């Protein structure tokens, strides 16, 4: 799943908002949500696949943190769309 699809889910956006404040392990994250821990794990997996969070080993558990580069990719996706689109529009106008 790409970053846009991953961001299309409100629970995942809330997870990101929490992780943005402070990185934490899945168990601690689950305490802040009304959905089950397995559900949180699934959301984290989607966010990780989309490059928006990264797990860091701390002792025996993984602590999840927001991955800045992932958000940059979202921006670049939109940027590149308009860069291509507007340069083509410029050519069209000259014809």
């Amino acid at each position, binding site marked *: 799943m790409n970053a846009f699809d991953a961001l299309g889910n409100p629970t995942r*956006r809330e997870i990101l*908002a929490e992780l943005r404040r402070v990185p934490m392990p899945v168990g601690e994250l689950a305490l802040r949500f009304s959905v089950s821990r397995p559900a949180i794990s699934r959301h984290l997996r989607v966010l990780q696949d989309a490059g928006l969070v990264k797990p860091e080993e701390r002792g025996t558990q993984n602590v999840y943190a927001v991955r800045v580069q992932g*958000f940059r990719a979202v921006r670049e*996706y939109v940027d590149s769309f308009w860069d291509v*689109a*507007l340069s083509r*529009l410029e050519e*069209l*106008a000259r014809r």
Partner: protein
Amino acid sequence: MIRKTVLLQCSPERAFSLFTEQAGQWWPADRRHTEDTASTIRIEASGRFFERASDGTEVELGVVRRFEPARRLVLDWYPGTGLANATKVEVSFEAVDGGTRVTVDHDAGAASHEMFTRNAPAYDRSWDAVLAALARQG
């Protein structure tokens, strides 16, 4: 928010018509939503904003909220985030020396508002500010 501008060597009327009636001509081929890389894409006064493949398949790309010929367009934009998390695109057309300045403001909704603006009201909507803030957090 992402802002892009371009200077077109034509009148605002023509720029607007190229943008809306001939969107299929400028829309990047690798960002089509049908199998047809030469599909027709139209932004209409009726409110429809859609793509149509040569086999007749149609995909709604958004909704036209404002259609002011030669002046302004406001679109609910589905590509990338889907209908449930539409982003917003505003396009303005301004007559300047040498042609028409077209300015695109793309508010990358799902991520920028919901997640960042609401949760961190101190930040403005600029993605640069958001990213800088994130980068500082490490």
